[in-house]
C-alpha cells in the first residue's frame, strides 16, 4: 500500500481522510497546500507542477517512514498533484493520525517541510499578465550560484 501518491486529477480529500481513520488515535492533523491568487505581488491565474514520479514516490515514502519513526505517530500519508491547476485547488495534502496532538502536529509539519525541499517537484506560476515562470524556494533563490 502506497502512502505517498501522485495524481494528475483533483485530489480526493474525502477518500484521503477516510484512509487516515484509526481507532487508537485521538488526534488528526491535516495540511493542505492550495493555489493562491498572488505571489510576490503578482496576480496568479494557475499553477503547474512538474513531478518526476519514480523518485518523488520513493523519497516521499522515505519521508513518511522518518516521520513515523521520529514522532511515534500511528499513520502518515501524503498526496501531491501534478499538471495544471486553478485557484484554490489543492496541490498537496498531508495527514497524520496519532494518539495525542503534540506528535500529530510535529509530524505533519516535518513531512510537509521535507517534501518541499527533497522531492523532485517543480512549480510554474502562470500570471494574469500571460507570463509564466518557474518558482524556486526563496531560500534557494537568495543563495549564491555555484556555476
Amino acid at each position: 500500500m502506497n502512502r505517498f501518491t501522485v495524481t494528475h486529477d483533483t485530489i480526493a480529500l474525502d477518500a484521503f481522510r477516510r484512509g487516515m481513520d484509526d481507532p487508537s488515535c485521538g488526534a488528526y492533523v491535516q495540511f493542505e497546500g492550495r493555489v493562491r491568487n498572488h505571489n510576490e505581488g503578482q496576480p496568479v491565474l494557475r499553477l503547474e507542477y512538474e513531478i518526476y514520479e519514480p523518485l518523488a514516490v520513493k523519497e516521499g515514502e522515505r519521508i513518511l517512514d522518518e516521520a513515523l519513526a521520529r514522532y511515534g505517530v500511528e499513520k502518515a500519508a501524503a498526496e501531491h498533484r501534478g499538471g495544471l491547476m486553478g485557484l484554490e485547488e489543492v496541490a498537496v495534502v498531508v495527514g497524520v493520525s496519532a494518539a495525542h496532538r503534540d506528535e500529530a502536529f510535529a509530524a505533519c509539519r516535518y513531512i510537509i517541510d521535507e517534501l518541499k525541499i527533497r522531492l523532485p517537484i517543480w512549480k510554474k506560476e502562470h500570471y494574469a499578465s500571460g507570463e509564466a515562470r518557474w518558482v524556486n524556494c526563496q531560500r534557494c533563490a537568495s543563495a549564491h550560484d555555484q556555476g
Partner: protein
Amino acid sequence: MRVKVRYFAAFRDDTGCSEEFVDSAGSTTGEVFEQCRSRHQGLHRHQASMVAVNDEMAQWDTPLADGDEVLFFPPVAGG
C-alpha cells in the same frame, strides 16, 4: 563512457532538451554536468540543484558507469 542525461523543468527550458546521450571523458556527475554546460549556454548549476543516478538521489561527486541514466534537477519549488 556513454551516459543518458535527462533535464527537468527550468533545466529543460535552459537547454531546449529533455534528454540526450553524452560521451564523457569525466567520471562523476559533476564532471558530466560541466560537459553539458559547455554544450548548452543557458545551463547553470544553482546551489540547490540536485542530481540523481538511476532513480536514486546522488551527489555531485558520485561516480558514473557506462550506461547510467543521470537526472539533473533544478532547485525544487520549496517554500
